[in-house]
């Protein structure tokens, strides 16, 4: 590393200069998960097994109308930059709604330790432009004025080369200011929320969020436990950080972060959504979501 990088390192810790990644200001893909149906929480399918890949989406308000096109292929040996396919598509999927890709791993899949899922997710678009395999990434996009394009990629690690389970976040305790924070979600996040629970004032106060990460979720490979990486997002207010870690050699079982409430809210209150994505650094992931109401 050249000394130039030291200069960068001194600066990068100061935060994103333009807008923070933990703020959901538009339709975004937050993560993806691969499962072997019937063998949850295994995240590394074997040849011949069914595979389900799903992407988690987030919106600042009313969910956008989504269309998508996905494909899975064998990953090429690109080590720098954006990878591609070494052959044709193993499976494809397209449609509307949250993007998913279900397929069965061919039993005669050539040697290789991972597959590559790639594609595009379009918000408020009239359709997808381009072929997922041959057009990725530059010639793949979304049609329609005002359409929002999210090109995505995701590595699917295969067994037996890799062996891994998804961590579980949905059943973990998430607390707001030391109180349990249920996963009950409003049906309409744009509707007035006053009277729902939990409620906080629009006073700029700092609230503490604690996310439990069970030690059971951190697999042990014989030398060390998996790390846990929690990505946190909100539709309003200011989260203290986008990424939190429980390092591999740590005994910690929860992540703590601060959220600063907004200073304004409509008379009927405003729903603020929180999204949490937990990754194990080896291809396993889980997702959970919470909501609170900010009132004047």
């Amino acid at each position, binding site marked *: 590393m050249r000394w130039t990088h030291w200069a960068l390192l001194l600066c990068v810790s100061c935060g994103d200069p333009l807008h923070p990644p933990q703020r959901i200001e538009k339709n975004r893909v937050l993560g993806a998960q691969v499962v072997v149906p019937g063998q949850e929480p295994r995240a590394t399918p074997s040849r011949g097994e069914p595979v389900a890949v799903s992407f988690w989406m987030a919106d600042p308000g009313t969910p956008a109308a989504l269309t998508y096109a996905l494909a899975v292929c064998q990953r090429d040996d690109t080590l720098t930059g954006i990878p591609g396919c070494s052959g044709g598509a193993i499976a494809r999927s397209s449609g509307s709604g949250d993007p998913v890709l279900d397929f069965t791993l061919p039993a005669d899949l050539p040697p290789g330790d991972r597959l590559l899922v790639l594609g595009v997710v379009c918000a408020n678009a009239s359709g997808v432009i381009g072929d997922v395999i041959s057009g990725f990434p530059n010639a793949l996009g979304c049609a329609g004025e005002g359409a929002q394009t999210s*090109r995505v990629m995701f590595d699917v690690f295969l067994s037996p080369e890799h062996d891994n389970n998804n961590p579980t976040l949905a059943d973990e305790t998430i607390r707001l200011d030391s109180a349990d924070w249920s996963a009950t979600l409003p049906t309409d996040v744009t509707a007035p929320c006053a009277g729902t629970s939990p409620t906080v004032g629009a006073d700029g106060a700092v609230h503490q969020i604690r996310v439990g990460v069970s030690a059971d979720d951190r697999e042990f490979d014989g030398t060390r436990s998996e790390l846990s990486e929690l990505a946190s997002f909100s539709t309003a207010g200011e989260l203290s950080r986008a990424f939190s870690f429980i390092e591999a050699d740590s005994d910690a079982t929860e992540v703590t972060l601060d959220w600063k409430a907004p200073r304004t809210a409509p008379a009927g209150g405003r729903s603020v959504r929180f999204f949490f994505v937990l990754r194990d650094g080896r291809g396993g992931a889980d997702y959970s979501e919470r909501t609170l109401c900010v009132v004047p």
Partner: protein
Amino acid sequence: MCAPVRACVLALLFGLSVSRPALSQPRSEAVVTPPVLKSAPSRDVPGDIELTTEVSVVVELVVEKNGTVSEAKVVEGVSAALDALALQRAGTLQFAPATRDEETVAARIRFRMTFTPKRTPPPDPAATVKPRAPVTPAPATKSPAPQTPPAPTTGSDEPEYGGEVTVQAPPRGATRRTLAGDDMRRVPGTRGDAFRAIESLPGVSRAPAGEGEPLLRGTSGNESSVQLDGATIPLLYHFGGLTSVVHSRLLERVDVYPSNFSVRYGRVLGGVVDAKTRNPRSDGFHAVLDLSLLDSSALVEAPISDRSAVALAARRSNLDFYFASFVPDDAYAVIAAPVYWDYQALFVHALSPRHELRVLGYGSRDRIELLLNEPVESDPTLRGSVGGALEFHRLSLQARSGFAGGVRQDVSLTLGHVRLGQVVGESVDADLSVLNVDGRGEWQVPFGRAASLTLGFDVVTSFSKGSYRGSRPPQLEGDPRINEAEANQAQVQLADRFSNLSPGAYVELPLTPAHGVLLSPGLRVDHFRALKRTTLDPRLTARLLLFGQTTLKGGVGLFTQEPLYFETLAGIGNPDLKPARALHQTVGVEQGFGETASAGIDLFARRLFDRVVATKNGAAPYFENDGAGHVLGLELSGRLRAGRTSGSLAYTLSRSERRDHDAPWRLFDQDQTHNLVTALRQDLGAGWIVGGRFRLTSGSPHTPVQGSVYDAGTGLYRPLYGRVGSARDAAFHQLDLLVEKTWSFPEWKLAAYLDLQNAYNRQNPEGISYSYDYSKSEVATGLPIFPNLGLRGEL
């Protein structure tokens, strides 16, 4: 840009730009004329002094109103016998006295006393005879009087001062630009750093912030060599550009060969910066103490016998005293603030008038350690501890000898150790230790009046061991992905020992077939043991004195550079790589205008082939010799030294392009189409000096980002790049000003200075920062206006 980012960028650039101004000398306050030598002293030596080559002793004289010399002391000695002889003859010199406002006054001047062997050997065919002005000491007024006049910022082949006629060796290359003496320490905006001053020369590009390595004629810093007394300096600048690791007052000169250098130098495709240490003063104890915001330094020197002298210099940064005050509290904890230090120790012993032994030890250390309070949002692998240390030590033994028949010998052995340790959160953990043993020997043998022979060898060896965990080392130039998040890059881990041996030998045959004509054909052979390759580099330079002060010059030759060490390591590199090659071509004209001005024009071309580039997809064998490049350029230079005014002008027009594999030609990462540097310095008298430097440079090329792909596995976006190098930053321009006042006392001097950098607060672009998804961007700017005050005492 958000406030914290701006704060830390400014803090960094503040550190990068704090300057130590140049040394000062007392200056006159009225119109003066210097003493003029009436008759030249004898250059012969007595019979008891054996002398086979020409040598010079620099003495400091006090010339009284009647033109006689009342005081003399040696400033740069050769040996006890010759120093004594110089002092003896100095006392017999007669001058026309100096005047101030038409009144005769005493003056203190420096004078170079040159001695030649009793039987003058035939002129070295490798030399050209250049008419030299009579002694040109500085304007003089009250005692102590000035020494040399203000010097230009553009280097010259001319020494600062000299005797009436001097046989001056020609440049060891088609173009040599030299900074010497106070010249190299008096350039505004360089913090008095001789190595930073070379950026004011034509053919030397402005280095981006944090990358201070010299960029010579369209090549990378790692394609040029910076040498100190013939051995490569492992690290030129503290923290990538703060200040160089060698005390500038210990240097005699810095020669810059931007291309077409002699066969004496090898293993690089770009150019050579060759610095020489001076001998310690032998006329008593001397010391310099310099205190500035950036660092503190001291230099002491004294004779320790009638044949030996020693100089010691050391420097330590002051950054750690205030660094924490300039960083955002919520960004990181400072475990160990940036600290650097360096030292130099030089011992010189004259074994005889013909034989000199020199021992030079020097070293440097940089260290920083931070604890990031939060993971970096754009790359969460950057979290926790971030730190590193880079340290080196060198011991160089040098022997310089002259023998009968004008034969000269120069041999040296340099032992060195480099230690590098870095931890960057979870992404990089590196530890490297390298032992170096470098040797060099050169013999110059004259054959009559028209030819001489130079034979030499150099050997570079290294024994390394280390471990590395981090991203796979990329192609360092021309690949924008080098700046991507570590989390998005393939990780490697290795621990290994490796050694390298690269012997080289050369022969040069300077010929003077006719008066004013010098041809220097040479051949260099290099063997690269790690590559199992041997290369031959034929080179030719020519100089033709057309008439008066007009010289036509040119050169052509082949040059070779082995790959960077990691590019050939199995597992991350390709052991089957071969060296990269280059063809250099230069033609130019030098024109003198008396002693007050000179100008030059150079046209140069450089063609690169077998460049090492990464494989198209970054996969095995990782690197290939499948790159090409070319550089074309024009350099204009001018300098002026008239009375109390000195100035320089350097302009370079160039285009440097590269091609990787079969991709279209692209701009070199640090291509600079236009590079204009002009400097002016004025002696106002009464110890006051003012100066300024203005730079106007094309912005650096960059690769635009045209979109992004979200990696759901890491939660990070990966940029989609446009054509490499297809956009360019806005132009860089900056004005630096220097004001200095020196008070002179009988035994010492005190100087106070103000070095105002970026005087009109130009927000120069130094890069682009992007939002997390690359949908928005803004320009990161460099150094704001910064006034640097300092004090210096000199005994």
